[in-house]
């Protein structure tokens, strides 16, 4: 079987695994189901890696599914493009799904009756959706897999239905993402009406062939398709679903959402622009640059500001993901192959680091039934290893060499220019500092003990679990339940009457109290962090990342490859460490340490700065607010493209 023929298997194998798990779920013991799931996701990953090694140069195998190769330059079929970016992301996705499956070995005491395989099956479907999204060379097919990702992600987010908050978070996620999906579909309709084509390359070729360059229809089509991708990427003002979903989703799901699904939105924008709109008939580079820069800077700044003010650890990490997505978009706005390389390195390393950080938070949640920074203060002393992992993750987030995040950050700074460099240093320092501050408080007990009366509801007595639901839902409507920054808890005295999502009284995800962190959780978390380190330390990976970026960012080479006449674009040199980049990385790390050092002395009350209050109020948890902002964001996109 040739390399092209294998490509559809990266989607078909996890789908088949999921269907078998569901079909046989009634008779399978949980252990078998979990191992089978691991086998399938890992096998898919191995397939992707094997394909990736065979990719020479910028373009890889191209497969017309069901053999519908176009004749005479036009066809009816769907094309899969296994270039470096697509296959590399498929490998990353598979690695993360495998890690999440290992991590969740000790999770979820109660699979649905007769459905031991339900959770691994959902993860495999998620993997199939994401792999399909990164491999397809067809815009409509990408939309189908985009929706598959969405449907599975809503179900996974709402997995713990006993809590009203989980339902609310999943619902918000579903609303905002569906709205983005509709926008994408409308955009596809416009582009199809103009060109009669659905493939990225085919639409791009048809637009380029039409005289006169891009007009209102083309820019509107781009804006609409991009809306759905920016919703996925959680760019401001499309980002509201992300923190709400992350604060309620089970930890392994957070790993996948923050680690890779959100970043696929960034990939989607890059693929859409370069494959379809980068030609003379598309969107002018200046316009695309403006859109990405404005979106990126807004997103990075808002993410960093909000990240610093969180005490709910999952929300804190969620906002740091938003900040980093903003950085990716900012770097991408340079629209050069070097920028694409930088984003690629940063994105892959960030996936490992962020997933590992969520892994650490998951251990805390299981041990203490809380993810509240203040409530956990000093109680993590016994979990020394987890503390070390968490702190190292924080340093990596800030950009400590030789982590891949540091290399990616340096490459992005170099590609995006001096103005953006300030942003990169500041944002990574603030998000890293927020994690380090938490690490110092929780695992070392640094700084002041928590203000207000300490209350340890869950760890002290883990009563019958039926009690939790009444506690979580009693007397509170779903609409005002706490997945937001402005609801959920009784205001503390130091909060000037402003409520806040604390993260205390969370439902633990494992069966009984965890006396020590389960090995499966630690192994997965450590491996993920090591992955983030490897991206910066293993030079053998760098040429692959550069090739992937070359292929991603070359409009004509992509079209030529799809139409069967691959050309080899000039390969850019593999990225490497540079002194200036390392110094800036060290500066960001130092800043993060200084910020984290000063933080515990400032009481938490003043940390929630008054000037940021309107920003916090915007994250209200009200679906109507989010929808209004999403629609306004679409208008903003249109305005920026004029």
């Amino acid at each position, binding site marked *: 079987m040739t390399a092209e023929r294998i490509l559809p298997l990266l989607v078909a194998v996890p789908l088949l695994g999921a269907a078998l798990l569901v079909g046989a779920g009634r008779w399978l013991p949980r252990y078998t189901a979990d191992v089978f799931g691991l086998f399938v996701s890992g096998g898919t990953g191995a397939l992707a890696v094997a394909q990736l090694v065979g990719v020479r140069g910028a373009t890889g195998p191209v497969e017309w599914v069901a053999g519908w190769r176009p004749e005479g330059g036009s066809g009816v079929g769907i094309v899969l493009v296994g270039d470096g970016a697509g296959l590399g992301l498929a490998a990353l996705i598979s690695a993360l799904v495998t890690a999440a499956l290992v991590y969740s070995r000790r999770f979820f005491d109660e699979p649905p009756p007769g*459905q031991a395989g339900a959770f691994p099956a959902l993860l495999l479907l998620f993997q199939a959706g994401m792999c399909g999204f990164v491999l397809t060379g067809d815009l409509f097919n990408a939309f189908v897999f985009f929706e*598959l990702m969405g*449907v599975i992600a809503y179900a996974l987010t709402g997995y713990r239905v006993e809590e009203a908050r989980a339902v609310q978070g999943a619902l918000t996620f579903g609303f905002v993402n569906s709205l983005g999906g509709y926008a994408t579909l409308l955009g596809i309709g416009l582009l199809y009406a103009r060109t*009669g084509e659905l493939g990225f390359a085919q639409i791009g070729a048809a637009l380029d062939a039409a005289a006169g360059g891009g007009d209102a229809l083309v820019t509107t089509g781009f804006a609409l398709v991009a809306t759905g991708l920016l919703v996925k990427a959680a760019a401001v003002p499309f980002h509201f679903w992300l923190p709400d979903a992350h604060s309620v989703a089970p930890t392994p799901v957070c790993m996948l959402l923050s680690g890779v699904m959100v970043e696929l939105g960034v990939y989607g924008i890059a693929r859409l622009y370069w494959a379809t709109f980068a030609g003379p008939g598309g969107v002018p580079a200046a316009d695309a640059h403006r859109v990405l820069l404005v979106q990126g800077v807004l997103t990075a700044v808002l993410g960093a500001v909000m990240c610093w003010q969180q005490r709910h650890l999952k929300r804190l990490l969620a906002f740091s993901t938003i900040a980093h997505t903003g950085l990716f978009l900012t770097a991408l706005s340079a629209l050069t192959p070097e920028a694409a390389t930088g984003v690629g390195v940063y994105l892959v390393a960030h996936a490992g680091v962020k997933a590992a950080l969520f892994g650490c938070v998951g251990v805390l949640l299981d041990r203490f039934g809380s993810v509240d920074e203040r409530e956990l203060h000093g109680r993590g002393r016994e979990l020394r290893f987890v503390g070390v992992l968490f702190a190292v993750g924080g340093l990596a987030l800030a950009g400590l060499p030789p982590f891949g995040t540091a290399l990616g950050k340096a490459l992005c700074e170099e590609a995006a220019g001096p103005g953006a460099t300030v942003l990169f240093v500041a944002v990574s320092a603030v998000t890293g500092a927020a994690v380090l501050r938490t690490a110092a408080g929780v695992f070392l007990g640094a700084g002041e003990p928590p203000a207000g009366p300490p209350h340890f509801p869950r760890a002290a007595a883990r009563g019958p679990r039926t009690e939790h639901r*009444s506690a979580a839902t009693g007397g509170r409507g779903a609409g005002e339940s706490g997945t937001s920054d402005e609801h959920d808890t009784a205001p503390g005295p130091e909060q000037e009457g402003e409520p806040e999502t604390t993260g205390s009284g969370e439902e633990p995800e494992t069966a009984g109290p965890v006396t020590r962190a389960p090995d499966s959780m630690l192994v997965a978390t450590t491996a993920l962090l090591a992955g983030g380190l490897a991206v910066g330390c293993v030079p053998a990976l760098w040429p692959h990342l550069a090739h992937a970026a070359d292929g991603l960012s070359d409009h004509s080479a992509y079209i030529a490859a799809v139409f069967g006449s691959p050309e080899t674009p000039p390969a850019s040199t593999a990225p490497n460490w540079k002194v200036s980049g390392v110094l800036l990385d060290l500066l960001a790390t130092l800043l993060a340490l200084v910020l984290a050092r000063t933080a515990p002395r400032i009481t938490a009350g003043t940390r929630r700065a008054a000037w940021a209050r309107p920003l916090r109020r915007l994250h209200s948890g009200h679906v109507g607010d989010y929808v*209004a902002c999403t629609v*306004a964001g679409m*208008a903003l996109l249109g305005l920026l493209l004029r």
Partner: protein
Amino acid sequence: MNKTVRLWVLGVGCAGVALLFVGAFRRLPEFGGSHHPYGARAVAAALHRHTANVVSSVNFDQRSFDTLGEQAILFGAVLGTVVVLRQARDERRVPPEPAVVAPTVRRYALVSLPLTLLVGLYVVAHGQLSPGGGFQGGLVVATALHLLYVAVDYRALERLRPVPVFALADAFGDVAYLLLGLAGLFAGASFLANVLPLGTFNTLASGGLVPLLNAAIGIEVASAAVVLLAQFLDQALELVPREGEHR
């Protein structure tokens, strides 16, 4: 945001999006033109493959990979619903009460049940020939079964549609679609390649792989709709909060 602000933000956003659309619509091809680039190609391809229903040819041959994703969405949505609507710790199951049904309703439903079932199966079986196919026919079949709920009561429906069997059929439809796709690979062609004999145009056995993929989808859609509705009906009719719980 309070209500006024929210409405203003939404209003300004909608106005902006409307402007975008007006600009785009002015540049669309004229209505009623004769230039249909994809349509022309798809019809030619469908005829070439001896598939009379061009829509089915697009769904199950030309763009069968889209359909793979779409059936996965349905499969995932059903699985997600089963997971989210599972019997929670604080719920218990009560057997539904027998219901009294007006005789006219009962007569009508009992007559239309076999008819609807037959129509559904016909629509699935003739997907490659006439409008319809696995998606549409599968839903008609599932509707037919639920006429039993209208005609008799929920207990009768439960007896006739064992959910585990339909859940298994749902997975079977999914697996069948994938295996039919893999068969192409093993035959030395592409995934989902239409390698079967194409048959005589406009007969039941025409279109090669199309009727088989169509049947797999029919099985999956019918069972998925049954399982999906069963989850919602269970939640509404059988599952109640435990004593002392507030919902």
